[in-house]
């Protein structure tokens, strides 16, 4: 269980996260949704220990910042793609915390092999990462995060640069990971897609949690539209599945 209590993060004097309180059960998928600047990525970075904060973030009653053995993996929105590094070498970097930098145990090589197989990357293990397509790179990032054998996996907009086919393929993979007991916290712009996979939606706006609950309930709540300044509308498909789209109206930029 992850407990976030009265979490405040300041940049200079501005509070970019204001009194965040969340309880996230183990082995669940929570999706942070909100407009740009809502504080979603800052919340993920704070959970990694990159931002100083007040309040507390605990994993199984231990403060995350003090728990060096806790394994939290991160899948970035904009990866840093090195030249002259193969897919297998890049994925192997995920073992650095367990093996030590620059070392590879036989066990790690097996884990990397398994993960490359699971993410359909085995055929391209020797290919350089800077020659991959967006969808292939996203699978490499997920494979790199998975070989970390994380207890918690943070994904920042994992599907933002992908076409629909690859979005579904990546989200299906994340769902499989969740089924193994890993706690997933992702940010996503697309609430429809988020609600389709995550059992929980957390709507953020201006550094605050505006709505937090079971996906279906959040999507149908009247506060959802006000969170997006009435710029969205909720429609129902024939099978009852909700679809949220941007409302057509005059916008000032």
């Amino acid at each position, binding site marked *: 269980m992850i407990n976030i209590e009265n979490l405040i993060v300041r940049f200079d004097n501005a509070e970019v996260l204001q009194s965040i309180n969340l309880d996230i059960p183990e082995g669940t998928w929570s999706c942070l949704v909100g407009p740009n600047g809502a504080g979603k990525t800052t919340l993920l970075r704070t959970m990694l220990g990159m931002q100083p904060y007040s309040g507390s973030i605990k994993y199984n009653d231990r403060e995350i910042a003090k728990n060096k053995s806790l394994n939290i*993996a*991160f899948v970035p929105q904009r*990866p*840093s793609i090195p030249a*002259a590094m193969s897919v297998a070498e890049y994925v192997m970097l995920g073992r*650095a915390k367990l093996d030590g*930098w620059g070392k590879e145990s036989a066990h790690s*090589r097996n884990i990397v092999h398994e993960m490359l197989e699971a993410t359909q990357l085995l055929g391209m293990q020797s290919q350089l990462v800077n020659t991959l397509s967006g969808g292939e790179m996203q699978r490499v990032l997920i494979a790199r995060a998975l070989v970390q054998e994380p207890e918690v996996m943070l994904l920042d907009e994992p599907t933002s640069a992908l076409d629909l086919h690859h979005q579904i393929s990546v989200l299906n993979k994340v769902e499989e990971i969740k089924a193994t007991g890993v706690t997933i916290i992702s940010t996503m712009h697309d609430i429809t897609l988020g609600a389709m996979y995550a059992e929980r939606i957390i709507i953020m706006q201006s550094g605050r949690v505006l709505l937090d609950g079971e996906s279906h309930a959040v999507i149908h709540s009247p506060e959802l539209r006000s969170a997006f300044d009435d710029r969205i509308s909720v429609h129902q498909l024939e099978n009852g599945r909700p679809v949220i789209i941007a409302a057509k109206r005059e916008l000032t930029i």
Partner: protein
Amino acid sequence: MKQNQIDRVWRWQITASAAAALLIACLLGVGFGPVNLDFGSIIRTLLGLPNGLENEDRTLLLELRLPRVVLGALVGAALATSGAVYQSVFRNPLADPYLLGVASGAGLGATIAITNGGGDLHALLPIFAFLGGVLAVAATFLVAGRLFADPSTLLLAGIAVGSFATAFQTYLQQRNSAALRPVYSWILGELTVANWDVVKWAGFYILIALAVLIRISKVLDALMLSDEEAYSLGVSPQKIRMIAVAAATLATATAVSASGLIGFVGIVVPHLVRGLTKRATNRSLLSIAFVGAAFLVIADLGARTLLSPAELPIGVITAFVGAPFFLFVLRARNRGSQ
């Protein structure tokens, strides 16, 4: 993964070949010149065996050529390794060791020494160049705001500080036109000042910096990931960058103050080694150091012998080789991306 093992053997072979190339380059460097020395006699002299060189030849080898070759090797290793590290830290394959204003700062320091030095220029110039280079990098960090804001802020701050130092250097040169020629000559690089005293102090700083860089080379892998991923693997990328930049700057500032500005080594050598090893540059630092050292020793041999008895600035030789190589790499990259 048998392919991994094959790759590892291949990479060690490249490191061993680079070390052998350095030894051969050093032998050629001490052997050839206006007076050629016999290789067998050189080896016997260096190993303290009988029938070595005697009299003037012995002095020529031990007091003139050997310190020059050793200094060339140290400077080449420093520039090539620093270039490779800067390319990792700034995630930019075209980053070179003079990026953060160290060259302009050293140039300003050297100009101050030349315009005001008068007496013992050879003693003053390296000290002023070293101080100028280090102070310029310190100013870059200061302008960037925080100790390690982010690579692009630091890069822009380096450009600003470098421009300021260059402007000040030009102002000093305009006020003292007699300094133009020695400053220009220094800017093109030279190893003529080499003696065992210079080798000792330059070697001290360069070897410390190289030892630090090779020691942290594996953790530099973390800089290939996003900062968030590096944190998730228990590494603070800011700290690693700071240590890497500090050590690379120390090596560069020392190299510049001992030999002037020698261009292209920091870009050509890492690209060359990366092309051979197919590895990210931080994973081949030892090979890069050896190849950089060999490259500069051979370039200096060319500088000494091509127009003998006159001597070319070594920076001219490295630019003659480096610029076409650079264009070749650029074309190859473009072809690859099409």
